């Protein structure tokens, strides 16, 4: 059977399980709100300066809130030892990984779609001026950190101290991706077009996505059935 069908089956399974209870997605979204709230204490959100850094704020909120969804990705398989059953099934590890990453990516995009308007209101930001370029950056940036998050979720699924280790590992490795996404987003939110510096960051983001997608697909079999 074509590998992409397996990818879809896995993604569909994860989405269905998640959407049935909406646990991760709800708490991820609420957590994003809490983070925005915390930040609004730390800074005066209406100040002009804050608006300049809004891209950064937004991606920090995405990264922290998204981690709740990403961590759960493989942790979801633990309670009944389901991961063993998936590894034992005649599904290439790469397909399994892509399926899970795909599901996570869609869930994250969903959460982000809710965050944007809320954020716009709280921080008084017009985010629709460069809508399509912004969408592109968000989609690529989210894919980058979904990849890393899903991979590390798989990597640490069986280690004691998962929760303690994950943030350190994940955020460090995904910094280049986050940095690029933040900078590009800040520029686009400021109304600049996707050219010059923003374009450089975008290219950087694409490079990151390509390299890390390939690395993940190559290494995932070792990670799961090493």
């Amino acid at each position, binding site marked *: 059977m074509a590998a992409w069908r397996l990818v879809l089956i896995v993604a569909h399974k994860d989405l269905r399980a998640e959407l049935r209870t909406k646990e991760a997605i709800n708490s991820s979204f609420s957590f994003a709100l809490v983070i925005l709230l915390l930040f609004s204490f730390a800074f005066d959100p209406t100040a002009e300066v804050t608006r300049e850094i809004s891209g950064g704020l937004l991606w920090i909120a995405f990264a922290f809130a998204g981690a709740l969804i990403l961590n759960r990705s493989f942790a979801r398989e633990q309670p009944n*030892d389901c991961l063993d*059953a998936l590894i034992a*099934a*005649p599904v290439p590890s790469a397909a399994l990984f892509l399926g899970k990453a795909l599901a996570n990516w869609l869930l994250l995009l969903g959460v982000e779609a809710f965050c944007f308007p809320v954020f716009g209101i709280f921080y008084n930001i017009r985010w629709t001026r460069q809508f399509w370029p912004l969408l592109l950056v968000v989609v690529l940036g989210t894919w980058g950190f979904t990849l890393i998050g899903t991979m590390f979720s798989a990597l640490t699924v069986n280690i004691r101290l998962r929760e303690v280790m994950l943030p350190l590992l994940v955020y460090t490795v995904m910094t280049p991706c986050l940095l690029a996404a933040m900078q590009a987003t800040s520029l686009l939110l400021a109304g600049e077009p996707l050219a010059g510096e923003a374009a450089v960051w975008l290219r950087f983001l694409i490079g990151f996505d390509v390299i890390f997608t390939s690395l993940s697909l190559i290494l995932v079999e070792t990670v799961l*059935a*090493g």
Partner: protein
Amino acid sequence: MIAVAVEDVWKFFGDYPALREISFTVEPGECLALLGRNGAGKTTLLRIIAGFSPAGRGQVRVFGRTARAVETRRLTGVLGHGIAVYDELSAIENLTLFGKLYGLADPERAAREWLERTGLERVAHGLVREFSRGMRQRLAIARAFLHDPKLLLFDEPFTSLDDRAIAVLQSVLRDGLLRGCTIVMSTHQLREAMELATHVALLNQGRMVHRCERPPEMLSDPGWLYARYGDL
């Protein structure tokens, strides 16, 4: 063709050898009971045969192919302690999912068939979360048998089950043997295992110290093998 051929397998956790030069074969239709004290290496060996982790040295062939080959995985059914079905999905969704992953022609039909065989057809659409222990165990059995595997690997299948659940599992296994399946299982509950086993193997500190047809003595005195090799 030989069902499982284990050749000179070693497994190291760091420098500690959990398995040492294990070699044996299992013919199709055999039911091999792996015995051994806590820490003898039963789980480790089963996981290597199932392809969950690679052997450190030596090789495993399942129906002539490596353990991780996709074709091998299609022929193998695994059941460990965990029931390996999803709490958030219904019984039928679970089975259909695995049917699809195994590339069955008609996953839906296979799922219904096995729900019937395990007596779960009435709760096909109930979420697993709401199932009792016994129902979950039956669903797990259905999942393991769904794709009609030729080789079954079971790690302590009888643990924590009550008499009735054990009877169900035994009857399903017996059916499997009659259909020509090969079974390898580990267990500490010798009495329950001996009714099925055609062969037994004893592991001790990572070595296979004995392998033979199940001696008739073991039906009445399951400790017989331990007693013979008692203070190894």
